[in-house]
């Protein structure tokens, strides 16, 4: 098989799998939230309500795709696509199993950080072009939140890079096979990255850009139909992405006892973190905007710097 054909096949399969996961996460989240909230959740369409996703999709495709008159049309149109594109691009560097990744970049980690930073444009432009005050407040919050959490998201990963000695995600996973899963030496880094990841995907408790009880729906208040759907799918793809990154960087990626194939290990671990995301949403209230910021700058930033310094020191001493 030619390498080109192989890449195309992997790309298509990864894309399909991801879209399926993201779509089904709607069902997973609603059912799990219901379970934790003493409710039933969607259980009518198909067995266990599994076909709910299809029903939702059919509905959302047939909804009127309304663009408000006061909106900035082209930007309003582009905004939701950005989130999908950037998140999907990030998946390109993730090794799902040995040899199964779209590209094997030697700066994979940096590529991921760059793409996730671009994702904020989606929220900011979406809120800005809606020309609605709630959306504007939402996107202002999003911009500030993303910029500050971006900083220690990057910093928190430097410990992993020091340990593995590479920015290549494949190498990082293999390094974990040699040393140990990095969440043990990098527990602080893991902690900071996880929090930054929640902020990055703006999920509760860091869902300030869309804080329902305050800003109605924040940046996507004016969106309807499939454009709204894209924000929605983008959010679930984001969760999947952050979960995959956590697994790759801290929990040994595809590594695991050999009775299951590596890719299954990867997906299993990823599922656990996705569920943690959902559980957080069921459990926690939302801090205020300034509390979120000061928590980030005054607590998480020093923590990630400390982590970086200590890791560097230890690695130097052990050499």
């Amino acid at each position, binding site marked *: 098989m030619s390498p080109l054909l192989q890449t195309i096949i992997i790309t298509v399969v990864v894309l399909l799998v991801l879209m399926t996961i993201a779509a089904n996460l709607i069902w997973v989240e609603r059912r799990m939230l219901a379970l934790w909230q003493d409710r039933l959740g969607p259980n009518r369409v198909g067995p266990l309500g599994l076909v709910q996703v299809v029903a939702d999709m059919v509905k959302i495709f047939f909804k009127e795709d309304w663009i408000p008159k006061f909106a900035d049309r082209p930007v309003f149109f582009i905004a939701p696509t950005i989130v999908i594109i950037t998140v999907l691009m990030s998946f390109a560097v993730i090794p799902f199993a040995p040899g199964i990744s779209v590209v094997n970049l030697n700066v994979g980690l940096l590529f991921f950080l760059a793409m996730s930073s671009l994702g904020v444009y989606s929220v900011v432009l979406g809120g800005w072009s809606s020309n609605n005050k709630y959306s504007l407040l939402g996107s202002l919050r999003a911009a500030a939140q993303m910029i500050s959490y971006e900083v220690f998201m990057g910093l928190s990963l430097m410990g992993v890079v020091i340990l593995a000695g590479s920015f290549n995600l494949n190498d990082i996973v293999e390094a974990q096979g040699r040393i140990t899963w990095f969440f043990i030496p990098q527990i602080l880094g893991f902690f900071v990255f996880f929090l930054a990841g929640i902020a990055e995907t703006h999920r509760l408790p860091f869902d300030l850009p869309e804080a329902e009880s305050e800003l109605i729906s924040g940046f996507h208040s004016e969106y309807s139909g499939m454009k709204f759907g894209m924000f929605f799918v983008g959010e679930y793809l984001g969760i999947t992405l952050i979960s995959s990154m956590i697994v790759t960087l801290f929990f040994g990626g595809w590594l695991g006892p050999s009775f299951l194939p590596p890719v299954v290990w990867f997906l299993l671990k990823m599922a656990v973190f996705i569920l943690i995301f959902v559980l957080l949403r069921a459990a926690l209230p*939302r801090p205020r905007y300034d509390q979120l910021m000061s928590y980030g700058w005054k607590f998480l930033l020093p923590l990630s710097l400390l982590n970086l310094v200590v890791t560097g020191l230890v690695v130097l001493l052990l050499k």
Partner: protein
Amino acid sequence: MYSDQTSVIDELNNKFGQQSFVTQPTQDEIPTLWVSKDKIKDVLSYLKHDVPKPYKMLYDLSAIDERERSNRLGQPDSDFTVVYQLLSFERNADVRLKVALKGEFPSVPTITKLWSNANWYEREIFDMFGIKVDGHPDLRRILMPPWWEGHPLRKEHPSRATEMGPFKMPDEKQTMEIDEMQFKPEKWGLEKGSGETDFMFLNLGPQHPGTHGVLRLILQLDGETIVNIVPDIGFHHRAAEKMAERQTWHTFIPYTDRIDYLAGVVNNLAYLSSVEKLAGITIPDRAKVIRVMLSEFFRISNHLVWYGTFAQDVGQLSPVFYMFNDREKIMEFIEAVCGFRLHPGWFRIGGVAADLPNGWDKLVKDFLDYFPPKIKEYEKMVLKNRIFKARTLGIGAFNLDEAVEWGVTGPNLRACGIEWDFRKVRPYSGYENFQFDIPTAQHGDCYDRALVRAAEMWQSLRIIEQCMKNMPEGPYKSDHPLTTPPLKEKTMVHIETLITHFLNVSWGPVIPPGEASVGIEATKGNNSYYLVSDGSTTAYRNHIRTPSFVHMQMVPFISRSYTVADLLSILGSLDFVLADIDR
């Protein structure tokens, strides 16, 4: 009566001279004095500031259209009467002052400088009666839309659409109404900017997930910081007071359920306490205890809804589901007893609609076993949550003086550190026979208001348990001619009772002329119905004093310089219901 009421009359007579006042006897024994229009401000100021043990709170302010009233024995001649009711905490007493006004559209001096909460009350009497308030800073309509013609509570204003002639919407009217809806900051008394800054105006509501109903708040923002707020209420106004002038005393009961729609029978109790005072009915013990028990169930139910939605307002999604499940358990009990759930309308003049069903005590016991672990769990889940604390501690605080100045009552007042609960200080419906404490807190912020309510649920459970263990035997309705409908057993054998039954059910009971207002501790604060009877089958005037109205009025005052996110905490912590504000 709970305290010495006559001394205030002497004090006023000594200060202003006997000729300044006309005393009017009322059924509720609240000292009621008529004062002339030019003296009213001085008298009120004296009562607020100078009299020993002053009357610090403006408890209520309303008006009466007297033009068609026939039973006004000994009262000064008046076309419109403005009624002020003050409350003194030190005396545990009220005083009611009345000002007689002559003419079609009379005027009265404002007292907004004396009491901050007079503002909305005075706007309301302007809106409802067309009484002009001289010197009022912002005399606009409050409940009706600005283009409304006429003043609804005037006797000549029709109470039904069918009496108003066909509806017309000419082009000019349509243009005018659309024009009225255009937002112009100046019209709401808001500056567009200050110095270099342009303010942002955010229209929160009438449809907004955080306002718990059709409430509109106009926010003047500097960034996300609140500079000022103008609440726009009246979207939920259903003219309950006007309906009361049409419905019989008996058939108005179900309307009261819908005033504070989370408190169910507690509203019935507030209304009926006044009616029974007017009719002079004493309630048998069993009926009293049944009333107390159901009221406390509804207090828990109300607090559960508040608890859940408050948590949701600060972003916690799950508690509201657990709490609604528990509320469902309460509703099942209410349904087993009353046959209805949210709006049972189950209390009757002179008692309750029916006796408790067989096996009711088992249902109560099940609930008493089930619920306490749940409250403990909620305390861990919500009150002890660190993010929840960060969102509520020190937010929206007001001190006791401010609370009294704004007429705050109920848990919101007790969160400022005063043990003031009508169930204790002015026991009604036999509350004096129960053992319970009044939870208080000290700081008067959002978190303390939450603490007080959470603690009140424990006390309600205690009261319910005592009701269950000590339910007296006996009739569930009073043996009184005005009890409606009367006890059935007698109707079948006793011709006088049959006739009364027939009349009271077909025409409605005739309540003797007089005036009464009995305050009760409703779920959200003090609720009372100021009833004026002209000796007919309907109320001549029924003014409903609701706690949420004053609490909402205070929101701008306590929200300034906080952020939009804090505003949602403040709104959630105050526990209001829009129907309770707009009536």
